[in-house]
């Protein structure tokens, strides 16, 4: 604009051409971009090589055992009978019970942090949940094994005695015997899937809480205040504004926690008594998960059994991957806008 006004009187000047903008990057920038891209592709190669390796390892196993690998519940390397039906069911049982315990606690804690706690305490509570996420799993295992299990078996006993008609609570034993005096040869209440799930629930609780809290804290302030101004009590406000807004976070956080619960190893290995049975009586002693199978079985494994273990691990990876992908989708869809731009 200014150029045309300037140029108007001087007729002799050559015609205006737009200044050529050079977008050639400096050497420094080219080195940086190439280096970063190189490292990114290197990491891609490493990481996908791991996934590929696991996938390729599964081929000989699946060729040898066929689909029976998924329906066989016994794991008898000596007789060449291997299958993951029991461990797959055990893994799902432990993870689902852990979620049944952790979900209400995480939901209520997330609501407490965003809507009940005084503003001054909010930061400290968030930090405490973060700290809980960093506690080593072995410590949760010790806590579940030595402190909680002796008391929790009483609850399991009570459930099986009075609610034993509900199949998951049934235990094949004489329920009138006290907990500490089970007749030999019968199932006891220790080392069950439910006991392991208590420790696992404490491990996945921080993850579920963190995701839910983050989504709840983004609930629109105006609508919350509008609800309160209309005379809603705090619970009515939470029920009508915060919970509908945070539904994606609730589902996504729970599924991320499920993904973590599926792969948990050490606390489960510490607590359960390993047994390869497909059963829904989760209060009865004896279960096995894919990760406990790997932790207990790798040492004596021949190369072909190692490949079977890797296949079991690959199945676990795929299940976790599926759960995490769905969770990421749900959480991403529930986030409105994202980061604020300056």
């Amino acid at each position, binding site marked *: 604009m200014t150029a045309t006004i300037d140029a108007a009187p001087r007729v002799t000047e050559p015609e205006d051409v737009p200044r050529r903008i050079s977008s050639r990057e400096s050497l420094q920038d080219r080195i*940086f971009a190439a280096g970063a891209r190189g490292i990114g592709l290197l990491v891609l190669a490493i990481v996908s090589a791991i996934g590929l390796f696991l996938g390729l390892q599964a081929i000989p196993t699946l060729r040898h055992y066929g689909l029976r690998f998924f329906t066989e519940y016994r794991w008898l390397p000596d007789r060449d009978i291997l299958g993951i039906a029991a461990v797959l069911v055990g893994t799902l049982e432990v993870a689902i019970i852990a979620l049944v315990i952790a979900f209400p606690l995480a939901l209520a804690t997330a609501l407490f942090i965003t809507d009940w706690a005084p503003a001054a305490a909010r930061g400290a509570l968030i930090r405490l949940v973060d700290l809980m996420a960093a506690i080593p799993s072995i410590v949760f295992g010790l806590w579940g094994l*030595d402190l909680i299990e002796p008391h929790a078996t009483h609850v399991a006993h009570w459930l099986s005695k009075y609610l034993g008609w509900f199949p998951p609570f049934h235990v094949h034993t004489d329920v009138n015997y006290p907990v500490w005096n089970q007749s030999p040869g019968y199932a006891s209440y220790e080392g069950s899937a439910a006991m392991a799930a208590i420790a696992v629930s404490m491990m996945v609780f921080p993850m579920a809480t963190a995701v839910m809290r983050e989504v709840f804290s983004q609930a629109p302030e105006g609508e919350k205040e509008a609800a309160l101004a209309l005379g809603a009590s*705090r619970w009515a406000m939470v029920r009508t504004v915060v919970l509908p807004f945070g539904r994606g976070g609730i589902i996504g956080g729970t599924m991320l926690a499920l993904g973590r619960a599926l792969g948990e190893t050490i606390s489960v290995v510490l607590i359960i008594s390993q047994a390869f049975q497909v059963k829904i009586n989760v209060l009865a002693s004896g279960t096995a998960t894919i990760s406990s199978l790997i932790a207990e079985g790798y040492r004596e494994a021949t190369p072909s059994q190692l490949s079977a273990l890797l296949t079991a691990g690959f199945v676990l990876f795929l299940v976790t991957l599926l759960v995490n992908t769905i969770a990421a989708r749900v959480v991403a869809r529930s986030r409105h806008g994202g980061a604020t731009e300056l």
Partner: protein
Amino acid sequence: MTATLDHDETTEAVPPVARPDGFAGRRRAAGRTRADNYAYLGAFAGSFATTWVLYEHVLPFSGKVGFVLCWYLLLIAFTAGITALIAPRHLVADRVASVVVIGAPAIIGAALASMVIFTVYRGFHALTHANFYTHDMSGVGGLDGLSHGGVLHAIVGTLIEVAIAVAVSLPLGLSTAVYLSEVGGRGSAIVRTIIEAMTALPSIVAGLFVYTVLIVDLHFPSSGFAAAMALSVMGLPIIARAADVVLRVVPGGLREASYALGAGRWQTVWKVVLPTARPGLATALILGIARMVGETSPLLLTTGASTFFNSDPFTNPMNSLPLFVFDAVRSGEPAYVARGYAAATVLLAIVAILFLIARIVGRERRASR
């Protein structure tokens, strides 16, 4: 109360309804009245007393977990009952929801506190022996007392293994995050998808992978280096993803301002993006490291738990704190179990220190801004 008002045709004519408690002054806008506080207190005390009578004396129950569960349920019931005497139904729902919501973090807090106290209490006896910090377990028999042996080898093992794993996975993970969020391009979507997928890799499977490739196929000995590789395989996607999330939150306006001033891409990343993201990056990375410190299952497969001091990660087996705890507690010998709990306390202390460092690094920056 509200129900009667709704059906009353002459509502607008009558003066403001007197409150049931006869209070006529300025309305206090607090969330809770004194009556509410008394109701909570009454429900709290009443439910505790009832649970105690039922649990310890009337019914044949026992076990502390059941006691707490029973108390929690009765507390909810008592709150509902007492509030129903003085308030309309929608307020009862609010009070019950409050008790439920406040009760959950209380249970978690109790679990967390009992966990820390229990671990320190069971390990306290071993922690008071100086040799616990200065000796290893070589030549210590199953029945030797706590004045023999220690966990120096496990502490050193953990530090070496985590240091190698961090040295491998931190630069790679951070550079990948910079590539994903600052360089981008056609390949970056694939890299991001694959990395997000690999965060789903369970740690035991990472351990089994390294065990199969490094130890079985390549005949590498069980060693600290193999363990560090397993930790790296597990930690690399976690660190890359955490750093990527932090970098993506840096406002795009800052980058544009930097380009507008004539800075190049490298200068923008180095002088603007990374310093802005520093507190968040530090927190995310240190939390990732804390997770590596406490991880047990990949170590179980790769280090071959030694009882002697070994600071060479390449030749002989090594031990580490989580693995030591696992083996010690499983052995069942009282002295070993006590050492296991003491080692778990040391592990908790290391995690707490890392967490404190993360807080300090995160806060220092905010103060100087």
